[in-house]
């Protein structure tokens, strides 16, 4: 009888243990996930907006692609806290605006 109880307890621990450990790990993992998400949009933001100096050298296709990437960043930036959102929306607006401006200028040159 006693042996059965022990075997039952061990089996229970074996089943519940990993689940409990996973549950305890969940907030840590979601924080890590959020951190990774943050890093991912920041990386993309830096990559897209660090090219403004070269805007005049890009082809129309490259400019269109940069504008598309700016637009894809917008919903991610909208989710940020107020301060981050204010700063990065302004920066994104400027950088997207420049690419669109150069694209227009290039279109005008052709006319």
């Amino acid at each position: 009888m006693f042996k059965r109880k022990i075997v039952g307890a061990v089996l229970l621990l074996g089943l519940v243990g990993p689940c409990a450990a996973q549950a305890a790990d969940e907030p840590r993992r979601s924080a890590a996930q959020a951190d990774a998400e943050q890093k991912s949009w920041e990386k993309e933001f830096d990559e897209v907006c660090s090219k403004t100096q070269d805007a005049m050298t890009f082809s129309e296709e490259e400019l269109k692609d940069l504008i598309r990437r700016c637009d894809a960043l917008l919903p991610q930036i909208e989710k940020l806290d107020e301060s981050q959102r204010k700063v990065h929306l302004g920066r994104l607006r400027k950088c997207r605006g420049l690419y669109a401006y150069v694209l227009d200028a290039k279109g005008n040159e052709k006319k």
Partner: protein
Amino acid sequence: MSKKMLFAMAALLVLFGQAPSQTGVKKRRPLPYEYGRVIINNYSEKAELAPVVFEHWVHRSKYTCRVCHVDVGFAMKAGATDITAADNSRGYYCGACHNGKTVVEGRIVFQACSKKGTSEESKRCQRCHSYGLKVASDYDFFHFSEPLPKERFGNGLDWEKAEELGLIKPASFLEGVSGKKSSLALQKDFALNAKVEGMPDIIFSHKKHTVWNGCELCHPEIFVGVKKGNTRYSMVDISEGKSCGVCHTTVAFPLTDCQRCHSKPV
């Protein structure tokens, strides 16, 4: 009696008749150390603090316009950034440098905005929230400007020459804030026709402007037109703070310095 009446009426006409015919009050020209000063009061007085006095001259000697107005994100119009103490304490806007960690010219830049309410803290608040208060600054304009080349208007300094001579070295990158950018391909200078006969044409130097501003600070928000010659700029618009006037009525040399723009030999 009638003579007295006539005299009184004439005096009243002289006194009050002129007032409506005037169309405004002449603004006092700011003194060299005041030029570029911005008073920020979006929330200060509501929080029972003096408004912030921001001196452009000390900041522009250390960083290019683009670092603050593109990378850090300050708007080009006074008060339009809507800076809050929370933004600063999270490390944005003023807090991007004023964080108690950033070192500029061997000095730790003091931290802006915190929630502590000690008297020591309130002294620190007053380093920025100083409008109407007598607060000693770490930087003295006269001492600072002494070795720099002089000009006639604005801050009374030739900022461009000061940089050329290596007397100021405005940084174009702020660690942790600015993205890494390649060096800028120089755009050609071009001439703009002056509308007034006898007035020399304008030589617009793209080089001078892009070194400090980059591209996205001016295009497209300040200069919208994409085709050269299609946008017409008037001195009235400029003096109202549009196009060139965004900077050249506030921080960069003012419109009174005509020949610095109208510089094409006749």
